[in-house]
């Protein structure tokens, strides 16, 4: 196009392009918004939320651009026609049509057209604004925003969601009951907090409302596990109750609860007969089942601190059964070992029934023996040298003021965690291994499941060596 003519036309073209862009935008919105609104309603009703707004925005921009390029963009001829309607007597249209003509008359005509354009104010070119259509667009947009903002609960359940809704309601009821249980159960504060945190996570999942039907059984299973954990962390009155909860040790626990030594002997005998009747891998698995069962029973908190004697007795039993496992690997006959383990446990239980604090008696006896040896050694240097490999410098709570029956971390009669104040210096004493082995072993059993496998083996080997 002739440069002068192009320059003279440009302000008019800009005005027309703005009008066309507005028209394209509104028409694009009119094409997209009804579909977006319908789509949003359908998705909400089916409980399948999709990014309808984002898609609508992209579709609107694409549609508007296509409409502008393919239909609404003003051509030179169209612009010339509208400009000529301002009283220019088709001068601009003729100039545009003959822009390629180089004759003298055409050049003069173009110059006349340019002159006419320069005399005309571009703002006098009437442009139409799609007011009514724009208002319709705004109404549709408002409707879309309202529908998008409505909470999901407003929408009725889709036919396929009724069953899911019932299942969710049931799970919610279970969650509420479980929360009640956790809040009222006799738990340590940290245990309660941990359980409630797990419960809150499940509640959050339910509240999102986006669970698939396939996720509900998994959530139910997790609730079952949580309920089991609550039971596990709720203290029992006696160690026998902890035993009774484990199927493998139920008969033993019932005998202890009834203080029936005859029944206990029968239960132990039955276990011994079953274990010694197996061999190889079967025996190993059976022995380890008993070991794990004893370990699980020892994790259950017991209100009565005096019950730790029983726990210790079963800890020793577990340790000896583990030794029997090692004998299987070493191809040794472990029948007597197993028999001795159960006899020893029977004896310890008997002593418990008899009211003896076997561990403290043994510890006191050991300490007395140690003191005697030390005194002897002090009196007679060089003689009866104490084999320091038989004793260990240990953390000795009684030396720090712990009362009788003190077990670090256990609950006392008031349900409080037992602990003592930190001393000014180390609380140390020398205690024979035999006095602490049981406690060591019991502590290992409590945490062995939380240890990595290789550490479990290392700890078991260490304890075996101490024994």
């Amino acid at each position: 196009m002739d440069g002068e003519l192009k320059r003279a036309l440009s302000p008019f073209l800009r005005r027309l392009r703005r009008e066309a862009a507005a028209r394209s935008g509104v028409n694009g919105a009119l094409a997209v918004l009804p579909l977006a609104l319908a789509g949003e309603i359908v998705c909400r009703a089916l409980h399948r939320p999709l990014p309808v707004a984002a898609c609508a925005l992209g579709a609107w921009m694409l549609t508007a651009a296509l409409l502008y390029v393919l239909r609404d963009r003003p051509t030179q001829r169209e612009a010339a026609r509208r400009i000529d309607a301002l009283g220019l007597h088709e001068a601009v249209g003729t100039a545009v049509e003959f822009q390629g003509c180089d004759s003298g008359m055409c050049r003069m005509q173009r110059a006349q057209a340019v002159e006419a354009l320069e005399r005309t104010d571009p703002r006098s070119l009437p442009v139409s604004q799609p007011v009514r259509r724009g208002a319709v667009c705004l109404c549709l947009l408002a409707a879309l925003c309202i529908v998008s903002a409505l909470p999901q609960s407003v929408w009725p359940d889709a036919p396929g969601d009724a069953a899911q809704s019932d299942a969710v309601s049931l799970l919610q009821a279970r969650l509420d009951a479980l929360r009640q249980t956790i809040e009222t159960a006799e738990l340590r504060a940290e245990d309660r907090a941990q359980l409630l945190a797990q419960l809150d996570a499940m509640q959050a999942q339910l509240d999102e409302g986006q669970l698939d039907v396939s996720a509900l059984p998994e959530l139910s299973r997790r609730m079952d596990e949580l309920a089991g954990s609550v039971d596990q962390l709720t203290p029992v009155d006696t160690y026998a109750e902890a035993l009774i909860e484990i199927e493998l040790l139920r008969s033993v626990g019932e005998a202890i609860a009834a203080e029936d030594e005859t029944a206990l002997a029968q239960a132990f005998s039955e276990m011994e007969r079953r274990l010694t009747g197996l061999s190889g891998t079967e025996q190993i698995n059976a022995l380890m089942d008993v070991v794990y069962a004893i370990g699980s029973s020892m994790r259950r908190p017991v209100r009565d601190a005096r019950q730790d004697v029983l726990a210790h007795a079963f800890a020793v039993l577990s340790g000896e059964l583990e030794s029997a496992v090692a004998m299987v690997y070493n191809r040794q006959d472990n029948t007597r070992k197993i028999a001795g383990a159960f006899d020893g446990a029977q004896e310890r239980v008997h002593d418990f029934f008899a009211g003896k604090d076997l561990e403290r008696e043994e510890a006191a006896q050991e300490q007395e023996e140690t003191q005697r040896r030390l005194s002897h050694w002090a009196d007679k240097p060089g003689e009866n040298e104490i084999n320091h490999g038989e004793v260990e410098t240990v953390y000795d709570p009684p030396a720090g003021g712990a009362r009788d029956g003190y077990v670090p971390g256990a609950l006392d009669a008031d349900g409080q965690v037992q602990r003592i104040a930190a001393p000014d210096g180390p609380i140390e004493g020398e205690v024979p291994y035999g006095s602490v082995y049981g406690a060591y072993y019991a502590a290992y059993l409590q945490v062995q499941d939380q240890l990595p496998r290789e550490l479990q083996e290392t700890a078991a080997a260490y304890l075996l060596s101490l024994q």
Partner: protein
Amino acid sequence: MANEADVRRFSAQCAQIMQQIRRDIVGQEDVVENTVIAMIAGGNVLLEGVPGIGKTRLVRSLARVFSLPFSRIQFTPDLMPADITGTNVLEQDSEGRRAYRFVPGPIFSSIVLADEINRATPKTQSALLEAMQEYAVTVSGENHRLSEPFFVLATQNPVEQEGTYALPEAQLDRFMFKLVMKYPSVEQMKSIVLMTQETMEEVAEPVVDAEGLLAMRATAREIPVMDGIVTYAMRLVAATQPDSQEAGDTAHRYIRLGASPRAGQALITAAKVRALTNGRLNVAYEDIDALAAPVLRHRIKLSYDALAERMTEDEVIAQLLREPGQRSAGKKR
């Protein structure tokens, strides 16, 4: 190829032509303007008006302004074709030898005033056909060219219809315009009387000669016309033809015979001149609208429905211009 000087000269000459003619003709601005347009465009004009309205005076004034030879033919029922074209005369020289010599008739002029053309017989009227179309006459088999520019300005009296012969369509189609001269107003009549009291002769001064007129015609011919305007003009002509696809209700009801393609040629040619006389270097839709009646009114034949409703050609043409279909192609209002 026209240049700026040609355009400026054209504008100046047009203004002077109008100014000079107004010295002899009072009022009748449209008729004067369209007659000048027709002359510049190279078309012939049929003037219709009651006697004494200035038809002959207009033609004589134009002849003076354009410095063109002028001849007048008074058409009567006994006028013969040879009276128009000329004839061969047998002459004897001093030695007694005899030979035919062609004596040219009054048609051999630049401006021919065919007064009351509808009083002559069709045979006589047809003598003008060849001259108007081909700028030549044939007498005794011999073709005689007419000089350019050549114009026929015919007049006819709408009152005395007895003893007249309506011009055939073929001849009517060769007139670019049919212009109707109306009665002047009181003020105009007053001016006429005062002017003619001084002198009855025309006083217009020459403005342009034959060569100048041809140059003006060439300049006007170069005016560009938008395709949309050409389409608009052709659709308008087609709309007068009842059998055409462009014909609307008006044509179907009021027109028996429509205009020929020559009407489209006349529209565009005259529109170019009109645009240039108005100082524009391009044809506009308003040019077509303004020339529609002069071009079409003598080319269409009204139907009995139109006659029964006392519709005139001008009213039918005005209705055609208002039809919506006319506006769709090439022009949008």
